[in-house]
C-alpha cells in the first residue's frame, strides 16, 4: 500500500521534469551565468556585476513562467496538466531549518579549514563547497523524484566540480582561477550536462508522446 502511495507521489514529482524542459532552461541559464562570472573576473567595468546580478534575478523570476509557457504548448496537450500544491507551512519551516542547518555546517567547515590549515586549507575547503552544495540539491531532487537523470547530474556536479576547482588551485592566482572558484567551473559542468540531458529527454518525450488528433477529454 505504502509503495503504491509513494510511487504515485514520486511520479507526480517526476512529471515536472519528464519532458526535459526545466533541464533545458536551467542548463542554459547556468552556462550563461558562468560566462558572466568569467567576464566579471576578466574586466574592471562596473557594469558587469550589475548585468550579472540582473541576469540572476531575471532568471529566477522569469524562469517559472517561461517553463510553464513551454509546457502549456508542448506537454499539457500530450500528457496532461498538473497544478502542484503550494507547500504547507510545516513543509516551508522544515525547508528553512534544513537550509539554515546546511548553511551553518558549510560555514563551520570553511572556518575549520581556515583555522586548522590556514589560507591554503581554507581555499581547498572552499573549492569543495560549491560542488557539494550543487550535488546535495540535485541529489535530493533525484531521491524525491526517483530520477536517475538527476542522480547523474549530482555525481557530475560533485566529481566534475571538485576536479575543476582543485585543478584551478594548482595555477597561480589569476582572473580565470577566481572565476572558476567563484562557481564558473561547476556551473558550466552542471549547465552543459543539464542542457544535454534536457535535449535528449525532450527528444525522447516527443517521440513517445506524439500529439494526436484525438478529441480532448
Amino acid at each position, binding site marked *: *500500500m*505504502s509503495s*503504491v*502511495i509513494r510511487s*504515485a*507521489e514520486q*511520479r*507526480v*514529482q517526476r*512529471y515536472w521534469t519528464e519532458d526535459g524542459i526545466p533541464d533545458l532552461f536551467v542548463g542554459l541559464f547556468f552556462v550563461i551565468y558562468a560566462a558572466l562570472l568569467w567576464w566579471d573576473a576578466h574586466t574592471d567595468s562596473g557594469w558587469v556585476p550589475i548585468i550579472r546580478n540582473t541576469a540572476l534575478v531575471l532568471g529566477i523570476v522569469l524562469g517559472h513562467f517561461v517553463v510553464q509557457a513551454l509546457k502549456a504548448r508542448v506537454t*499539457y496537450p500530450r*500528457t*496532461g*496538466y*498538473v*497544478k*502542484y*500544491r*503550494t507547500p504547507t507551512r510545516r513543509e516551508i519551516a522544515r525547508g528553512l531549518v534544513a537550509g539554515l542547518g546546511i548553511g551553518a555546517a558549510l560555514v563551520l567547515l570553511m572556518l575549520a579549514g581556515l583555522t586548522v590549515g590556514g589560507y591554503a586549507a581554507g581555499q581547498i575547503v572552499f573549492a569543495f563547497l560549491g560542488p557539494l552544495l550543487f550535488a546535495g540539491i540535485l541529489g535530493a531532487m533525484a531521491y524525491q523524484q526517483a530520477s536517475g537523470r538527476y542522480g547523474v547530474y549530482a555525481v557530475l556536479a560533485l566529481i566534475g566540480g571538485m576536479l575543476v576547482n582543485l585543478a584551478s588551485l594548482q595555477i597561480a592566482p589569476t582572473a580565470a582561477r577566481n572565476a572558476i572558484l567563484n562557481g564558473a567551473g561547476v556551473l558550466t559542468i552542471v549547465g552543459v550536462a543539464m542542457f544535454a540531458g534536457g535535449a535528449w529527454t525532450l527528444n525522447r518525450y516527443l517521440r513517445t508522446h506524439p500529439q494526436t488528433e484525438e478529441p*480532448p*477529454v
Partner: protein
Amino acid sequence: MSESILPDIDDVIHAPARLAIVATLNAVEEADFRYLLNATGLTKGNLSTHLSKLEEAGYVQIEKTFRGKMPLTLLRLTPQGRTAFEEYRRTMLRFFNQM
C-alpha cells in the same frame, strides 16, 4: 480471521484503481483528466467510472471548463477527500504495524 482485528478500511479509497487516483490527486492541487489517464494507466471508461464513485462519496470535485476553445476536465480532491485519504493511510499503517 476475527472481525475485531480488521481495520475500519475506507472501501471507496481501498480499491487499487481508486487508491492510485486518490494518491495522485493528493500530491497535487489539481490535475486534468488526460494526466490521470497517463498516470494511472486506466482506460477512459474505467477512469470515468471510478471518478464518479469518488465524486459521489464527496472525495473528488470534477470541474468541466475550457482552455481557449478546448474542453477541459479538472479534478481535485475535496478537503473531505484529503482527510479521508490521510485517515486511510494512518489506518493501514496501524494495521500493518500490528501484524
